Each structure stands twice: as structure tokens, then as C-alpha cells.
């Protein structure tokens, strides 16, 4: 869920930039380190970013509401590349979305980055890693991690709107419940659909090109053979 240009009033868009910039700097530092060690990742990261962009421009079918909504794609990227690199790719994707598709904006880039490129991916990554340590089924894990990332993004966006526009009675909390309640209509089905979509994509990727997942440290090769055996 993007916040559009000019929507956040003055102290808030600066504050969200101040929150996002250090994280992005850290992400760039991590990326620079990776690139200087393995130069072949530059094109791979670039196509991964382009993949996120194209995935997020596809319309998802929505069973509950008649409206269609766009997936964020960042949950999947976080599972594959980790949150630091996803944050940098996410910033570029958000910038392109605001320039090419008129989704989002430049002053709200900080707030959108915090919600969609930082907090969502971190939630997905932490969930995926801890659940796979605990031995959860791979598909269920991917589904939950992506869906949770979407939900986190939506909650953070609602918080951002509520902080900027606190309600007269009840303050920030009251207006948070209002924003969250109304956007839940589109955002909760979206999270479920995107989670299922990502889990199924992963199923095909394991079948066809499982070595990618081993390369990226998403799955160990032992886990891949186990999943493949279970399929047969």
C-alpha cells in the first residue's frame, strides 16, 4: 500500500526519511561488500530487482473484494536475498514505481521505504529463518512469511497515517484503528493471495531450478532432496 505524493504533512515525511536512510546506508554497505567479493552478483541483483518490479505491477485476482490489488513482492525477495539487500532493491523499485507508474511519491519515499522495503522484508526474513530452524514445512513457511510481510507493511502504513493525522478524540490509537479497519478490506485478502502465490512459485522453482535456492542459502541441499522426495 503506497502513500501518495504530498499526503504526509511536514514533520512526518522528514521523520520517515530519517528513519529509512540509515538502514538503506547499511544495506548499501552490505551490498558493496558482496559486490566487491563476487562481481557476478551485480547483474543477478539487477534482474532480481526488475523481477520484483514486474511482479508488483501484475494485478492479483481477489476473491473477497471485487477490486484487484498489486502484490509487493518484497517478502519473496527478503526470503531469497536477506533484508539488507532487499531494502536497497526495494528503494530502487519504489523510486521506479513512483516515476513510471505514478504509485507513491518522492516526499513519501521515506515512509514507503520504511513500510515496504524495510519492515516488511525484515518480518518475512526473521519469520522464515526461525521457522525453518524449527522445522516447519517449507511451503507453509513461505506462505506465512510472505503473508506476514504484507500484513506488517499494511500495519506500518496505517501507523504512519495515524501518526500524521491523529484523531481529536482518542489520539493516534483511535485513528490507527480507523485507517487499519478500512484498508483491511483490500489488504488482508491481498496478503493471503500473495502468500499463496509465492509459496506455489517456490514449489515450481524447487522442481525446476532448485540449485538457485541452494546457492542463495534459502534451503540446504539436504532439504531440497527431502522436498523433492516428498513430491514423488
Amino acid at each position, binding site marked *: 500500500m503506497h502513500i501518495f505524493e504530498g499526503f504526509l504533512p511536514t514533520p512526518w515525511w522528514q521523520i520517515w526519511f530519517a528513519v529509512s536512510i540509515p538502514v538503506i546506508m547499511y544495506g548499501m554497505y552490505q551490498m558493496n561488500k558482496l559486490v566487491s567479493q563476487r562481481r557476478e552478483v551485480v547483474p543477478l541483483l539487477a534482474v532480481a530487482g526488475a523481477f520484483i518490479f514486474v511482479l508488483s505491477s501484475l494485478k492479483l485476482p481477489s476473491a473477497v473484494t471485487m477490486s484487484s490489488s498489486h502484490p509487493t513482492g518484497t517478502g519473496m525477495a527478503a526470503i531469497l536475498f536477506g533484508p539488507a539487500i532487499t531494502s536497497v532493491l526495494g528503494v530502487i523499485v519504489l523510486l521506479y514505481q513512483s516515476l513510471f507508474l*505514478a504509485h507513491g511519491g*518522492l516526499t513519501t519515499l521515506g515512509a514507503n521505504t520504511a513500510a515496504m522495503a524495510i519492515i516488511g522484508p525484515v518480518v518475512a526474513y526473521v519469520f522464515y529463518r526461525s521457522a525453518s530452524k524449527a522445522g516447519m514445512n517449507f511451503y507453509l513457511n513461505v506462505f506465512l512469511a510472505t503473508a506476514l510481510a504484507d500484513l506488517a507493511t499494511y500495519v506500518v502504513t496505517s501507523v504512519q497515517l495515524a501518526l500524521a493525522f491523529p484523531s*481529536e478524540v482518542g489520539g493516534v490509537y483511535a485513528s490507527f484503528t480507523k485507517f487499519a479497519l478500512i484498508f483491511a478490506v483490500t489488504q488482508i485478502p491481498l496478503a493471503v493471495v500473495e502468500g499463496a502465490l509465492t509459496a506455489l512459485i517456490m514449489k515450481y522453482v524447487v522442481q525446476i531450478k532448485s540449485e538457485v535456492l541452494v546457492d542463495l542459502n534459502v534451503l540446504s541441499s539436504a532439504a531440497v532432496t527431502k522436498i523433492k522426495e516428498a513430491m514423488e
Partner: protein
Amino acid sequence: MVNILDDYALMSPLRYRNNWLKLSIVTFGILTGVSSTSPFTPLLIALCMGFATVYFGRIPFKFYLKLLALPAGFVLTSAVIIAFFFGTGDILFSFDVSGYTLAVKSGGLNMALLVLSRTIGGMSCLFFLSLTTPMVELFAVLKATHFPDSFVEIAMMMYRYIFVFLEVAMGIRYAQTVRLGYRDFRTSFRSLVMLGTNLFIRSWEQGEKLYLSMNSRCYDGKMILLEEKRPVRMPEVLLTCSYFALVLSVFYLTRGITLI
């Protein structure tokens, strides 16, 4: 499927104007719009930027109006929420919904109108940038600022591959549609999974090929861009300055004025 604004920017006559001038106009508009305290300044900015985009940039007027309607869903919903739950002052109108009284107060309505006009102003500035300045020109600007090289490189390659994958995605989607792949929820979900998987695997293989091909052409982590020199002309400076002066004076004169 998607309207990429960059396509219009490549054809716009304003493409051949100085990038920094355009960027400063846009930055000025966005910052003044977002910090204005009355709805008049952002609306004036929207009017000027819209005129510049349509008249100087030769963007079809109908297309421009359609673009402005794009953020409407999000913005109108949020504006309605703000109008109902924000602010003090006289109650303009109210109605009962199952025991709750919903009331629009003048403070809330003013706030909603202000936010609405700010968004329109900001979006029109953004449209001016994206409809007149193709990304290829902005890369030169990105290179001149002190972003890390790897960041700019990835941004540039990503830009290229967005178009490649969009074409692939559109082709697949078209093929699926004519085979009734988007008939109902179940089939469209299944088609979308196929599309996503195919795109992922194809982009991965493309990335590996890209590395090989660039490496064999002596890629050392830096693509060199030739930036064209485009001097700022006198009429442009005069027009920009008078626009700035007009907006700033309206900003000063209407500060704190509300519609209601």
C-alpha cells in the same frame, strides 16, 4: 497491462531541456506544496505544472486526466477518514450509523481538503518529471550525485530489464488470456503462479547470461555514460523565475486561509 510513463517522456520535446532546471522546478513545487498551509498554493502549482506538461510537453490532455485519477482510490478513502475523525470546530453535518454518530467538523473537512490539494499538487509535479524526463537522462544526474557505484549500476541494469520482463510477462499473459486462463478466480490464480514462476526462472537465467556477456566485453563494474551538455536558455530562466515568484507570493498571501 501497465502504462509506463517513461514511454511518453522519451517522445516529449521537453526531454531536450536541461535536467537540473527541470529537477529544480519539480523539487521547488513539491516542497512548497507540501509545506503550504492553504489549499490554494498546491492547486496553483498543479495548474501550472499541468499546463507545462500538457502544453510544453505535448502530453495528450485526456491521458493526463486519466493519470490524475490514478491515486484517487487511496487518496479519497483517506481524505474521507480524515474528514470524519479529525479536527474541532462547528459540526457541519452528521448522521447516525447503528448507535454511532458520525460527524464532519469544519476542522476535519479543512484538513481533508488541504491534504487532497497537496496530493494533487505533488502528483502533478511528479507527473511533470516522469512525463518529460526519461530515466536515461536521470542516470546522468544520479552519477553526478554521490551514490555508490554499485547502486547506480544496479539501478541502470534494472531499468533495462524491467522492459525486457514486462514484455515477456505481457506475452505470457496474453497467451494465457486467449486460452481462458483468467476466466475465474481459480484459473487466474493458477495462471498467475505459472507466470510468476516462469518469470523468475527466466530472469535468473537472463542474469547469468548478462554477466557472461558483459564480462566478455570487459565490464569492470562501471558503465560510462556520455552526458549531453544542454545549456539553460534565457526564456526558460525567466519563465521559471516568474513561476517561482508567483507561487511564493501566493504561498505568502494565502497562508493559513481555509476554504470553509
